Structure formats: C-alpha cells, structure tokens
C-alpha cells in the first residue's frame, strides 16, 4: 500500500512543510517503510481495549488560576525573528 504523490502533497500541506519534487521520491519510499512497519499493529486483537493516553492513567491536575512569576513581554520577545512595538511581524495577511 504505497503512498501516492498527491498524498505526500496533502500531508505536507497539512503539516505546513514545503516538499520539493526532488525530495518526494525518497520521502515516499521512507514513509512507506515506516507505515508498513506500523501496520503490524493491525494483526493485534484490541476489541474492547480502552486506549491508553497517559502511562499512569493520571488525570489532569489543575492549579489555582492566579498570576505567577510571569516574564516580561520584552524578555519573551527577544527571540522573535521580527518584532516591533511589542508585536510579532509577519507578511501582510489582509490586503
């Protein structure tokens, strides 16, 4: 069950990763190998088995909704590739 080029393109679009035509061949081959391997799961009978999301089956712990040692916006924005006036800059979204 090999992946088709249009499926790779769909995944790349969903993942927001540009994939070039040259990359597509090797990528398909390697993704196919991984997906073939994980298809071994299909042979396992899991009828009635509850899915396990957390190894200790723990529930989400909640903390009081209180302000704690927050970093300043300036500190947090120091790593921004482009910023001005406390805002992150991106290419124009609306015309």
């Amino acid at each position, binding site marked *: 069950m090999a992946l088709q080029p249009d499926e790779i393109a769909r995944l790349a679009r969903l993942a927001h990763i540009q994939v070039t035509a040259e990359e597509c061949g090797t990528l398909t081959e390697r993704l196919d*190998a991984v997906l073939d391997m994980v298809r*071994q799961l299909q042979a396992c009978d899991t009828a009635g088995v509850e899915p396990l999301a957390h190894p200790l089956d723990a529930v989400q712990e909640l903390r009081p909704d209180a302000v704690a040692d927050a970093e300043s916006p300036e500190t947090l924005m120091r790593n921004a590739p482009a910023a001005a006036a406390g805002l992150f800059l991106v290419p124009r979204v609306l015309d």
Partner: protein
Amino acid sequence: MHELSVAQMAQGLAAGAFSSLELTQHFLRRIEAHNGHLNAYISVCAEQALASARRADAAIAAGQQGPLTGVPLAHKDIFCTAGVRTTCGSRMLAEFVPPYDATVVARLQAAGAVVLGKTNMDEFAMGSSNETSYFSAVRNPWDTDCVPGGSSGGSAAAVAARLAPIATATDTGGSIRQPAALCGVTGLKPTYGRVSRWGMIAFASSMDQGGPIGQSAEDCALLLQAMAGHDPKDSTSIVEPVPDYCGQFGGPLDGLKIGVVEEYFADLGDAVAARVRGALAELEKLGTRLVSVRLPRSHLAVPAYYVLAPAEASANLARFDGVRYGYRCAEPVDLLDLYCRTRAEGFGAEVKRRILVGTYVLSAGFYDAYFRKAQQVRRLIKEDFAAAFAQVDILAGPSCPAGAFRFGSKTADPVAMYLQDIYTIAANLAGLPALSLPCGAVAGKPIGLQLIGNYFAEARILGAAHRLQQATDWHRAVPAAEGWR
C-alpha cells in the same frame, strides 16, 4: 581528578584536596583538548562555569556543602538554560537563547552544581545515532568511526570520555539507555512524571522523561536525587515523595526475584547474549533469584511507538512557525510561504519524516486505524508488564541488539535505525523506570544490561545495579585505546 566518582569529588572538595575552581578548570581543559574531535558539546560555558565554581567554593568554605556543590556536570541541549543558547540539535533553534531555566536546570543550580556546557543530541531527540544533529554527529569514544547512540549521544560520550563527570539526558524511546549502553556508561530513565519536563523541549509528551547519565549507578543516584520531585509547573509531574536513593543502597539482594525477559533474547546475537547472561549470573551470585518471564506483546512496542511518538511530535513541533522564536526563512512572500519554507529549511530530514508520519496517523480516516489502535496496544503492553511484576521484582535483558555501529550504516533505512530501540521502547510506553549499565564488550564495543523496575522503583534498580558494580568492574573499563582517559 576526572576519574573520581561524584562522592569522591564531594569528599575532595570538603577536605580541601582541591577546589571546585580547580576541578572545573580541569574539565574545561579536557573539553578544550578533546571536544574538537568528539563533538560531544554544542556549547561550552567556560565563563559561567568558573563563576559558579567560585560561588561553590565560597559555599563550601561557609560550611554549606551538599552532595553536588561544586561538582561539574553537562546538560543535554534539550533543557532550557537562561541566557545560554539551547538548540535541541536543530537549525530551527540554532540561535535560540531561552529567557528561563528548565526546572531540572534550576534544581541543579540550587544544588550548587557547575554547568560545563550543553551536550550534542539528535535533532529534537529523534534518532538513535546522533547523525540527525544539525551540529554534526558525536563520535563514540570507544571507536570514533562509530556512533555514540542517541539521542543523548553527547551526554553519554562526554561521560565516557570524562569530559564531564555526570550529565543530564532525556529518554522518549531509549535515548538515555541506548547511548549509555553504546558508550559504556550507566544511564537511568525514571518513571514517567518523576522528573519535571518544564523547560525540556517536548518531543512526545506522554513518554519524554529526563534522567541521569554517569559512570556508575551511584553517580546516577546522586544526580537523580537533585533532579527528581514534583513540579507545579509540569501538570504531568507526580506528587510522590522522593526517597533517599543512595541511602537505600545497603540493603541485601537476597531473595530479590529478577525476571529474565524471554522475548528479549529470541533474536539476540550469541556474543551479546553471553555478556548479558554473564552479568545476570553475577546478580545471581549476589543472592538474587533468576526466573524466566514473558512479555508476549514485545514485538508490538516498536510499531506502537512509531505511531504515537510521531503523532505527539507533529502536534508539539507545530509551534515552530518562524513567528515567535527560532529560524525564519528569507523573504517570505506570504504567511503560508513563511510557515512552509521556515519548517522545510529549519527542520532536518528525520524530523520532517516523523512530523509527516504523525500527520498521516492523525488525519481524518486514519485516526482509528493507527492512533487509537496504537493507544490500545499501549495498554496491552502495560498489562504485560503488570502481569510480569506480579511475579518478579525487576525485569532484565539487553539494552540494545548490539554494540556501537559505524556512521552511515543505518541512515538509508529508517526502520533498521528504529529497531535499535527494540528493547527500550516498551518501558516508555508503560512509563516504567529502566536503566542500562555496562556488562562487558563485544569486539571492543561496550554492551549494556537493562534493568526495568516497577513504577517508582528507581531505588530498587539503582540498588541492584550498584551492588553489581561493587562486585564487578565492567563500569570501570575505559576507552583507553583512544587516549581520552
């Protein structure tokens, strides 16, 4: 000085045999001499280390010495360090300077440890050979034509070559135990939730766990002692008291039942199996009882992991979009182009592959067949362990199928690389603590014995490993041929 254990370093510091400044300078000189070839460190923090060492010396002089005060260590470059570049082995974060410390980093700083630098790793911890690092692979100190394992290859190689006495690391599918095995050092992956993940860059959040790498189980116990504990900043960290790990080392092993996992020997080469069984025979001499146990769903661990880990990774790595921090492509024409080219250029091939696999298994029409199915298998694997631990106290087997392999020998075949973790992944799926310790070598390459404990039984597996290391000297073997030591 670099051959000393952590406890011996603390004694030397207390007795005034040497200062933390001298100890730190000694390790910095070793890093300067050998890191160019080994590539175990991405960043070396000489100035900060010397300043911390001076503070530690002042604390010791004032009579305020803890077990790690003034002891140098290295952090895997996945732990955020305030003001010190944290790359996660990726071009995406090649210039990222965190504004805060990870909880693990803050705890070790509070314990008075001296940070020598940040160790190399597979990109975003995805790899078993260190070959996916944007900063080039680490070399194995035992054979520099071979991989150190991964993803914590830098931490394991740094400890093996004594460019650090101890190092922090993380393990999502074997990333502490496999490199520890391949580099001939001891490494522990704690119970899921034992060590805070806050400030540890996420790969697969339901399996990621930080832990120690050291020259011995005792050194690992001392490091874990300072790393472990509940953290209100990590909602998955467990509220459970941290025992005194070294304090429990005295107990006898008499009557301790060790389950030898049959499935882990089925496809194992004779030479590796002989080393692992040799170590188990030593444990038997120390009073433990060996019994054969089965983990019948073992063969499903790798397939389940390669659905769940990529799925979680595809969600976690969505944050790298070139907007708030990290790499950004040049001259994007619009927002979508910014996202797509930033991620195409900022991530390496293995990371992109895993994001795409994760996207596939979570996408409409495939979710039940892959993601839900893998979560169901995960429960069955956990149940296999529960059944085994109803009969025995510790499970044992090999850490990896073989010793270190040559660079490039598995890069063309992702599945062959993934099978490196065939014996380590199940403990991550179940959330159990597991450690790897050296048990000899095959063709000059170290082999690891793996001990898996029940939930929060770190003290028990560390204690068994410690007793074994007191009775044997596999962990003292050094890569002498290469001249690191």
